[in-house]
């Protein structure tokens, strides 16, 4: 129990370190020292300490391209982990994550519809894309949940089946919309496979309110989530208003997923791997699991994104492809090692 603050402090420190280091990684060769200098020079009050001895394009690269990207990467990784942990706890199902249960697909369809409307009708409602994604996520979740439910429980097998079915259907709809989108197909495609390239501060600001609202709600009810792990009836007997908490949690997790998907497309398996790994370290108590997963997930994704930027440089691999490469084997490992628990 007393380890917990240290774990959190360590992860915060490591997160800051990772952000700085990953900011130095990129095609333009800018050293860590220079990155520090550029950042410090922009902090009000500290400007006088640093003498500008770098090309002004570096300012743009660091401040307008790399930093928002790293920030966004961190937010996306953290958010997907929070959503994953919440879904796993709520459905009492270790294989739940926004991607495997089809919520990401729902969000993607919502966002695609929004983008499609924008491009084909020449409308602009940039701020509305996360909202459309959120609607898509909620609708997909409602379908999957009701399909998968057997009595009062959501067994792993039916949940995965329902997730696959809904995902495939939604993907088909997305593909159809992409075909109809004509020349914009490439843009939608690159967004969809999950990438963080060409994202700027406006994207960060666009999704931040949704993510803060969703995360605060999940943290607020995190103790209830612990009790719900014992079973819904048990939780009710321990004084939890189960139906209310479930609805709040599902909406909050979908809100987060919708927001994330609307800027970064479908980045799979982060919400599965991270809470799982973190649970092995800190245990299943959501009050510690959720913040730890958030930090862990954020750190994980900025490093994965750095890999995506450099592994095939100058070509950039969409980060969703790498997370899938790493996540799918982990998923298979979980399926096989815990086969007994899942009554296959």
């Amino acid at each position: 129990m007393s380890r917990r603050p240290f774990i959190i402090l360590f992860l915060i420190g490591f997160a800051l370190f990772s952000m700085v280091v990953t900011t130095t990684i990129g095609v333009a060769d800018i050293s860590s020292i220079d990155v520090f200098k550029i950042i410090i020079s922009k902090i009000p009050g500290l400007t006088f300490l640093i003498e500008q001895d770098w090309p002004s394009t570096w300012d743009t690269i660091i401040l307008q391209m790399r930093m928002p990207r790293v920030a966004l990467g961190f937010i996306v990784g953290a958010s997907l982990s929070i959503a994953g942990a919440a879904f796993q706890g709520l459905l009492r199902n270790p294989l739940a994550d926004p991607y495997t249960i089809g919520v990401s697909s729902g969000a993607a369809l919502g966002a695609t519809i929004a983008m499609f409307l924008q491009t084909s009708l020449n409308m602009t409602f940039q701020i509305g894309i996360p909202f459309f994604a959120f609607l898509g996520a909620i609708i997909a979740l409602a379908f999957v949940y009701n399909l998968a439910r057997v009595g009062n429980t959501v067994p792993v097998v039916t949940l995965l089946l329902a997730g696959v079915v809904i995902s495939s259907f939604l993907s088909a709809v997305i593909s159809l919309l992409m075909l109809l989108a004509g020349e914009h197909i490439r843009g939608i495609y690159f967004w969809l496979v999950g990438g963080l390239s060409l994202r700027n501060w406006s994207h960060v600001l666009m999704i931040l309110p949704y993510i803060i609202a969703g995360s605060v709600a999940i943290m607020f009810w995190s103790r209830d989530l612990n009790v719900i792990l014992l079973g819904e009836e048990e939780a009710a007997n321990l004084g939890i208003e189960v139906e209310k908490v479930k609805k709040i949690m599902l909406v909050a997790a979908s809100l987060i997923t919708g927001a994330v998907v609307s800027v970064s497309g479908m980045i799979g398996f982060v919400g599965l791997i991270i809470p799982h790994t973190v649970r092995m370290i800190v245990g299943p108590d959501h009050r510690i699991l959720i913040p730890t997963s958030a930090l862990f997930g954020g750190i994980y994704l900025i490093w994965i994104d750095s890999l995506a930027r450099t592994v095939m440089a100058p070509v950039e691999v969409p980060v969703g492809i790498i997370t899938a490469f790493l996540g799918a084997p982990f998923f298979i490992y979980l399926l096989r090692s815990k086969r007994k628990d899942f009554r296959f």
Partner: protein
Amino acid sequence: MYVNLKVHDLSFTYQSLPVLSGVNFEVKKGDVLGIIGPNGSGKSTLLKNINALLKPLKGSVMLEGDNIFKMSRQKIAQSMAVVPQDTSIGFNFSVYEAVMMGRVPHLGRFQKEGEDDRTVVKESMEVTNCWSFKDRSVMELSGGERQRVILARALAQEPEIILLDEPTAFLDISYQTEIFDLIKELNIGKNLTVIAVLHDLNLAAQYCDHLILLNKGEIYKIGTPDEVITVDNIQEVYGTKVIISKHPVSKTPYVSLLPRIQDKFVKAISRKIHIIGGGGSASSLMEELFFQGMQLTAGVLNVGDKDWETAKNLGIGCTEELPFSFLSGEKHGENLEMIKNSDSVILTNTPFGRGNLKNLEAALFAVEKNFPVYIYEGFDVRLRDYTGGEAADIFQKLKDKGAREIANKSELLAIIKDKND
């Protein structure tokens, strides 16, 4: 003693099928109430209505004067805890963490567990003997250990009432007694009110102060175990024949099953036998004949008499008269009817006084109607004649008219079985 919980006119339907109808009862503080009944009689449903997990169609449940359906879950959980049948906790909480969850109803949203909470949790775990494995994962526990942890968690809630839904259904007998002894201890020590759904009638009789026997969603009988667990009630509600004796130590009713298979084997030589006895003279014979598969009737027996009790516990039909009363003409008539419906009559060596002289006349009636009458263990009637010779006279007449004296039980059985009619 004040009323802890009051259930008034409770009816519940599931998909328009009535599950409970018109259930009324009260539970007093410190009572142990058992709910028994066959599968599908609505036991668990009743329990779930009591703790407001299910909303009834009509009726109310009052918990210390408050309508439970208007209380928040948290408020309910502060005074009512539940121990379910079996629980699987799918995530890796430690035993201590799992028990600490029992404190949730008493904590504010962001309130951390304090010293008081830790004390309560430690006490609950010590009482239930699970403090020694507090750091183990709940997933590694055996069934008995897990049930103790769940009980500890329920106690950590510091409830007024504890609800148990067949808490030992999946446990072997040593754990069953362990859990129930513990519950009884808490009931006595902390004046905890207990409401338990139970499958095992003997467990229910042994540990409960009162029982509710449910049949098809209605209360068939409510009362003490002695009042509820009777051959007739069990036969009526469960549709199965049992015999009831006394638990050798606790003296509570003890139910034994009668395998049907026995009926099949002995049917061929089953006879209708009417027994005239009293004062315990017929008890062992009744038991023997009953187990041989004979169809028995008895009469007239005074209520409370040893033979009457045996007849009741075996489920034997009998004509009964009020305790220590003269046999009335009406009962005598009923007795004669039973004799007419039997194949043979056995008279045992009960003492005869004015009160039961009519029983002897009934035997005489049987002989005169050419029924085979056997006098079992008929030692000298003069030694047990308290009528001034009247009984002895009738006895003599009986023997003169062909009643056979047989002193040996196996001989009697052989004769009854051999007899063709």
